[in-house]
């Protein structure tokens, strides 16, 4: 079986636990914005069922290498599968929510652009 087979099987339900890694570079405005935006989304839709690990790659560049990060800020949804990546300040709520399998569409959560 390939990863593609595994990734295809588990649709996210309302009890699914999310493991997210957000890679940022210090306290730049976009990093700060990305952190704030993703935290808002999580607290609105994943209360009590998510782990968000914020990684500063300016402090720990090797973490960037192990996760094949090429730009920051980058959010990686490790669980549930499939693994997904999102680049930017996380202000495009609809796209991120669809990518996180939280909903197909609907009202956007107000997030901010720096």
């Amino acid at each position: 079986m390939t990863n593609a087979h595994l990734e295809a099987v588990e649709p996210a339900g309302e009890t699914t636990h999310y493991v997210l890694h957000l890679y940022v570079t210090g306290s730049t405005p976009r990093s700060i914005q990305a952190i704030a935006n993703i935290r808002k989304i999580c607290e609105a839709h994943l209360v009590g069922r998510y782990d968000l690990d914020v990684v500063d790659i300016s402090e720990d560049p090797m973490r960037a290498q192990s996760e094949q990060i090429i730009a920051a800020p980058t959010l990686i949804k490790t669980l549930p599968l499939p693994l997904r990546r999102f680049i930017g300040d996380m202000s495009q709520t609809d796209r991120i929510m669809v990518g996180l399998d939280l909903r197909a569409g609907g009202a956007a959560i107000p997030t901010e652009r720096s």
Partner: protein
Amino acid sequence: MTHKVGIDAPDHLATSALIAENARLQIRLAEAEETLRAIRTDEVDALVVQSAVGPKLYTLQGLDAEIMRFRGDMLAQVSDAVIAIDKDERITYINAAAEDLYGVSASQALGSTLPRVYDLRWFHPADEVAAHTDLDDLGEWRGENIHIRSDGRELNVESSVTVLRNIGGEATGRLAVVRDITERKQHENKLQVSEVRYRRLFEAAHDGILVIDPGTSKIIDANPFMTQLLGYPYSDLIGKELFEIGLWKDGRASQDMFAKLKLSGQVRYENLPLERVSGEHQDVEVVANLYEENGRSVIQCNIRDISERRRSEAHVEMLMAEVNHRAKNLLAVVQAVAYQTARQGDPATLMTRLSERINGLAIGQDLLVKNQWHGVDVADLVRGQLAHFADLIGTRVSLSGPTLRLTSEAAQAIGMALHELATNAVKYGALSNLEGCVHIAWKTLPGNQPTFDMSWVESGGPAVTVPTHKGFGHTIIGRLVEASVQGVTQIAFEPGGLMWRLTAPMDNAIAPANPAKSASPASAVL
């Protein structure tokens, strides 16, 4: 069919793998496009490029980003906790010191609201209002409050909060620099408790305490008892030197004391005269200590009023001398009693008679000791000597007389006389049968020469016969008691019973001060 399946299956699997790989590549492609889009739309801060020495970070935001990063690095180094929040009160920055202080990691805290890291408690509701007012009006606030960590631990903190603004001047968040002052506060609280405790000791002490500046020799503090001891109000003591307040009236002696104190750190004077503001003199003991207080020397002078102790010592000395004198007297009396008892009477009963007489003396001594040699009440003396007949008192033995205190000498002699009279009454007189009575009375007779009058009158006993010879008992109730009070005795062997009477100048028999004793006058019948 089976053959066909056997041929088709690998093809089918290969097709599925290709579809899956295609899907994966499409996702990667979408992600690559996403990355390019993000870079194009300026949503990316930095690019990570693999190099021979590992990943290398290229920031895309020029000088501002570098300056920001530099500031971030500086904040990370400071020992105070630094936390920045955005206008929604979400944490956008937390340094290592803040992670330690609140027991959270940056990854947990970033993007979270403040209550996730700590709750606030103000000392007074007005403090919170004042803080918000300062932040709104001045853009900054500095003050103290309590931060409660998520594990419940409370921290006393001193915070400095500044409003962050963008180039347009719009508030974008706040930056707080927080210092943990919990230990300092605990120390301050301990100091406060200690201050209250020792201040109470200082103020309630029954020793006078002066605090003196050794540089100027002037008093800088005094406790309330000191003002009481000297009779000066507190304000009059402060700024004065010791010789000015009646201690070491000689300024030179006072200087000598300071010199000794500086050499040895402590001086003690067991008996110094102190002159109160009223001019009255008082004996005091002075102990002075030199010690350091916040890097400067101070002298603590404890002054104890020893007048009472001196009086007590004098009284003990007087008592010791009195006891010595009494003991010598008593030994002389015992010697005389033993000699006279042995010289007269039946040798076979010598030990019994001698023992009884010494016992009578002992009763008188006990009463004297009980009254600290200040004499003995007549009623107590009578009851003591008649203790063997206590059950007869009130029936066959009656006592009457006012409360009068005999001098020690009179008590000793009259006590011995009463003992002889009682012994005689039991052996030969009114108490030797079942009907006889004894009436003991005493009184004072006023006049130019007030007189003490005491009598022992027996009645109802066996018929009285006048003794053919006078023994030592007769001497005791006669000459001995007369000599002790310069009085006169009458001894009559009346047919109805023995009558004994003593009259003496009151000053010789009755203690002058007649210290108040609670005993009521003997009633007609005790």
